[in-house]
């Protein structure tokens, strides 16, 4: 089963400057899929194409088998998808937080009688209870990112994109966002995640790695994130445990298998004796 399918998609912003070239992928429902690649590799561009925020000139994109370029394609996709943008300031349309979330609710045709409850529960989810009347411009960086996420969570879309949505959060905030995303997955939502922070993507079900305008590898988090050479090739941060595994190997110490987390590393080291 697939929710999003991209077939032979290429894109360039300017003549002869390919950003992505002949990309094919499919995203499964109820799973977390992470797109990884270095700065400028085209991650945000891919998301913009899926959401029809950029014109698709080469290739095809389908959401639940609906062709993005069909008559009501764009309308359908916008209803299915929600996105937390890389820069939260691109997210907001109203100066007051509560109004901003309500604006989205109105757009999604949610009855006004439910608005207050929706706002309340969305803000609770991101730990911003009591911030209803706050001017968005007065929020701290981390608060702004949480506010942006709240606006999307309120809409209850089936497919959710998080583009570096936690980059400004403090360590606990990052952990809470990861938990929230896993909870959404457990509610059968489809999640597409972009983050440079490897800890954010370790729990993904599937990882798509981009480099040099192409997908260079895709698979489970374990397969992709323990593939040292590919990660280096793509310019991605190496998980701590994988780095330790590699460096121990150089010093003549071989673990049975490459661990993905620090806990697994500990386990492998106990096994050594």
């Amino acid at each position: 089963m697939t929710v999003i399918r991209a077939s032979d998609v290429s894109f360039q912003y300017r003549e002869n400057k390919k950003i992505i070239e002949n990309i094919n992928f499919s995203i499964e429902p109820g799973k977390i899929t992470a797109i990884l690649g270095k700065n400028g590799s085209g991650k945000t561009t891919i998301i913009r194409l899926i959401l029809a925020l950029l014109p698709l000139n080469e290739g095809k994109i389908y959401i639940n088998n609906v062709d993005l370029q069909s008559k009501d394609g764009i309308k359908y996709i916008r209803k299915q998808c929600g996105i937390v943008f890389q820069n939260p300031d691109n997210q907001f349309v109203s100066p007051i937080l509560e109004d901003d979330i309500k604006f989205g609710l109105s757009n999604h045709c949610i009855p006004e009688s439910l608005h207050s409850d929706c706002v309340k529960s969305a803000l609770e989810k991101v730990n911003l209870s009591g911030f209803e009347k706050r001017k968005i411009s007065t929020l701290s960086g981390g608060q702004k990112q949480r506010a942006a996420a709240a606006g999307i969570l309120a809409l209850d879309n089936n497919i959710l994109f998080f583009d570096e949505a936690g980059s400004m959060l403090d360590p606990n905030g990052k952990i809470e966002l990861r938990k929230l995303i896993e909870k959404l997955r457990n509610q059968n939502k489809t999640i597409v995640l972009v983050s440079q922070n490897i800890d954010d993507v370790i729990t993904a079900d599937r990882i798509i790695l981009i480099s040099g305008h192409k997908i260079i590898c895709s698979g489970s988090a374990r397969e992709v994130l323990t593939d040292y050479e590919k990660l280096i090739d793509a310019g991605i941060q190496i998980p701590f445990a994988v780095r330790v595994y590699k460096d121990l190997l150089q010093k003549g110490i071989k673990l049975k298998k490459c661990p993905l987390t620090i806990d697994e590393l500990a386990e492998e080291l106990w096994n050594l004796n």
Partner: protein
Amino acid sequence: MELELRNVTVSYSSAEKILDNFNLEVNKGLFFGITGKSGSGKTTLLETICGFHKPEMGQVLFNNQNIYEGKFDTVSFRKKVQMVFQFPENQFFETDIRKEIEFGIKNTTLSSEDLNRRVTETLQTVGLNDNETEELSPFALSGGQKRRLALACALVLQPEILLLDEPFSGLDNSGQNQIIKILQNIKTKGTTILMVSHDPNVLCEIADRIIVMNDGRIIKNEIPPIVYSDKQFCSQLGIGQPDTITAANLLDVNLNNDFTYENFITKLAEKLLLKNND
């Protein structure tokens, strides 16, 4: 003392103090990492040092002069102290990247040749020097490329004090390493750096001292090993711990207060080889 905050109190409304009787002394050439929960006042602190929030009480002194006093030379201060904002993309206004960087230095005595060279060098140091990117408008850049540009705009001015608000967020691995090198390099040339970050790994690697903030106050101002070795303290203040410490605790490796990755891997290998020889 190059920079000093004396009993500084800043608030946006009457009720809540964002900086609460804040005291800090910064010697030239030091690298301060600033960390603490979201909303603890880190951005407000940098902006206050930069001259954006006149404190209700207290003084901000730059080379012993109060920067908020009427007779203070704000024009030359603005050149010597540069800040890279938490969301720098909101600051751009030129039509291409070179112009954006040039903006800060174009009214100086530099010849146009020198000026060009300096812009090119700066683009190189932040990794934006490929031809394709150079032609773009700042607004067409990817998220990480925008962060690099913002840093370039500050670096080109060769400030005496550099204030950085989460400069690593969203940067890829090579970008992070590149910028760590730049910061280490300008530090050896005497630049004072105050950097806000939530990343204990980066802070441990490059900061001379760590300031931990909570509710507008300094809770700790210490060298990194002292701040980050106390697990309970770190979790209480929500600042996290470097991977090396988490792993060392779990694996029972003694790091002797050197939390760099190199030391960790050396000590771990030593321990394992010793065991094997038993």
